[in-house]
């Protein structure tokens, strides 16, 4: 008889599910309300060094769209039909006061839509600071590294002006340690899922990681520790599914129904780039340094995950995707990008070619975060799964 998932796991998953899509950011706002020195700093996809916000007595809060959980009415009036869906939801949240208690906002350099959204926040005078976070695209330590450090120092100063808290070496090292553990635990979940994907569905995994973007890292680590321990035990039953890697969903997030449909169609998602920012730094960052900021800078220059937001000449993403597929022992890739997402869609032909050259099967489709019909996607994913099972 099939062993059932532990009750405690079910309870934790329910908690994560509620947290993940709380677009009022209730937990974060309650956390902030406990001290006038606490900060809430919202950040958009993909990556910001959350350690610096944490060390400044702040909570970094991921603002990664409203999905299909909020009807967009006013936001649509700010965007033409050919702009992706993500910023509409964010503007809707701005106008509906969801983001009112936030102190600042960071807009990582990922595309021109997010870049210009930073200007819209400035025009709307939203937050005590809103800053376009212009990652260096030069990866030499003394060139791009110096520039990046100055950028981070500017954000640290922005936060200092609000709460008068000076970040010490110890603070920053402690924060690095917490986020190291966070990334390590997330990686452990992915590793367990790689071998036993039936123990935790892709949707549950999604909720767990997304919940971590709206709560403090200490609490998220507690949840992750428990979940890792629970899923390390045997339960559930494997299905005759293929194993896929999802690529292209790093910014606007696919609706939950779509992730579910892919798995129900016979595809275990063994790796993905949903919420890539939480997994951006590969491996740990030195947390015993006398200059921890330098460690954060170096980690960006040398340990960043492959991403469409990063200039990749010399380290092509297609080769890195092929390695990812091999390492995860996946059968294929599903290219799944948001409509009108220039970074993902302009990378797609080369990534597909990389898969073709390596003999890796792939399919692709596009979505909006509020796509409501999954029949076609389910059929496409199902056919993909069947064709691999039958022919590969």
């Amino acid at each position: 008889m099939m062993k059932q998932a532990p009750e405690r796991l079910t309870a934790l998953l329910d908690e994560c599910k509620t947290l993940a899509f709380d677009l009022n950011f209730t937990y974060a706002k309650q956390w902030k309300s406990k001290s006038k020195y606490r900060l809430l700093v919202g950040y958009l996809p993909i990556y910001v060094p959350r350690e610096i916000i944490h060390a400044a007595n702040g909570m970094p809060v991921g603002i990664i769209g409203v999905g299909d959980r909020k009807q967009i009415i006013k936001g649509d009036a700010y965007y033409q039909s050919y702009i992706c869906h993500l910023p509409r939801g964010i503007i809707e949240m701005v106008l509906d006061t969801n983001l009112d208690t936030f102190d600042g906002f960071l807009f990582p350099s990922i595309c021109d839509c997010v870049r210009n959204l930073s200007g819209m926040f400035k025009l709307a005078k939203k937050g005590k600071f809103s800053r376009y976070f212009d990652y260096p695209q030069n990866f030499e330590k003394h060139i791009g590294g110096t520039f990046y450090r100055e950028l981070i120092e500017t954000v640290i100063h922005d936060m200092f002006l609000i709460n008068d808290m000076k970040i010490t070496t110890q603070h920053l090292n402690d924060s690095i340690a917490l986020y190291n553990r966070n990334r390590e635990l997330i990686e452990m979940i992915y590793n367990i899922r790689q071998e036993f994907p039936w123990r935790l569905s892709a949707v549950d995994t999604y909720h767990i990681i997304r919940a971590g973007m709206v709560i403090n890292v200490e609490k998220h680590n507690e949840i992750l520790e428990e979940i890792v321990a629970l899923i390390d035990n045997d339960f559930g039953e494997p299905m005759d599914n293929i194993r896929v890697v999802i690529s292209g969903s790093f910014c606007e997030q696919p609706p939950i129904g779509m992730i579910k449909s892919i798995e129900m169609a016979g595809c275990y998602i063994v790796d993905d780039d949903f919420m890539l920012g939480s997994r951006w730094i590969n491996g740990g960052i030195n947390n015993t340094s006398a200059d921890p900021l330098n460690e954060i800078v170096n980690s960006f220059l040398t340990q960043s995950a492959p991403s469409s937001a990063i200039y990749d000449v010399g380290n092509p993403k297609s080769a890195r995707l092929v390695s990812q597929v091999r390492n995860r022992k996946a059968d294929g890739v599903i290219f799944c990008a948001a409509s009108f997402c220039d970074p993902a869609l302009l990378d797609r032909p080369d990534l597909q070619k990389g898969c073709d050259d390596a003999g890796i099967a792939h399919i692709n489709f596009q979505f909006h975060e509020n796509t409501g019909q999954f029949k076609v996607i389910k059929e496409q994913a199902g056919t993909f799964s069947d064709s691999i099972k039958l022919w590969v």
Partner: protein
Amino acid sequence: MSNPKEAIKEKSMVIQKEMLANLFTELSNAKENGKKVVYTFVPGNLTELILAMDMLPVYPEINALQSGMRKKSGSYIKDAEKMGFSEDVCTYVKCDIGMMLNGNIGPTGEKLPDPDLLLLSYTGCFTFLKWFENLERLYPGVEIAMLHTPYQEDGVITEEQITYMVKQLKEDVIPKMEKVAGKKLDYDRLGKMLDNAAKAEDLWVKVLDTAKNRPSPIDSYFAGVYYMGPLNTAFRGTEEAVSYYEELLKEVTDRMNLGLCPVTPEGEMKEEKFRLVVEGPPNWTNFREFWKIFYDMGAVIVASTYTKVGGLYDQGFRHESGKPLESLAKYCMGCYTNLNLPQRVDLIEHYIKEFKADGFLINSIKSCNSFSAGQLLMMREVEQRCGIPVGFIESDLVDPRYFSYANIKNRLESYFQMLGQRKTILEQEEVNA
């Protein structure tokens, strides 16, 4: 729709046509003559550096827009889409890749040479980065240099940003250029070119300023895209460009002194009824029909943001030979699409007031998020601050599928009607006062 006749051209346009024809001939013979070819972008271009090392620049956006004007872009785009590029992405990229797939034939019918260097001046447009990543794979083994231009996110250019750019130029970009060119950069020569650039920039600003006159002797958008050509592309820094702008200024000043309206492809406009400021690039596939809608209604564009993608000289920037690399860095960071949204709104407000515009119009381009994302908020801001009628139309750069003539014409006619009514009311109020 009108049946396009042979366009009437000003003398400066004829000169420019010759300059371009010579360039394309030189490009087609580049390999035989041992000339190295550099592919690069218009915003934040480093033309003086390229020319100072005796290399020849090719601008993929210019190729794409010329393909659009020659009605070839539609099939190029479809070819790129067959290769896997989504319908949703930038059509300049797809047109360029499609053109390459079809033999890379330039506007004069001659084949463009393959690049010896891909010089990615990553300024004001994220897609540039993706574009050149793709080109690098299509031209395997070719040298590639990348200059990251920081965005003016805070509305200022900082010393740290300048240092970052100068370091990239000194330690990465210039050494790669020197390697490809097979020679060291001659800073004296570069300095002379920057001095020439500044002379041409002075003249260009004087040309733009003539639009403050009533009637304006130029159309700063439809004709402006021709006028800006030599400065934004392969000729900035040359004596030739200075001569071109001298001629252009003379021509425009003569027109202004005679109280003439702009020259259009169908001859001189008879009356200036409306003065507009326009934001966003034009549509290239139906450029003449698009322009005709305006001049048929007596609408003149007195200032435009698109003509500032290659540099905001009218706001005071000049290339300087004293600190050449710092000057190039400031130039790159000062291009229009590298400004943040509040800066863009301020600039538009300034244009509306300075050029005494009757209206503000946005041509929102499907392909260009750098321009388009946020334009609807910009429009509201401008309307609030300036209290003039604003209009909004949509088209694309080079994808003919996204140019709906009837739709655009209807919208513009309604807009001009609104401008006309407002003008009548204002005139009446003035009489009553």
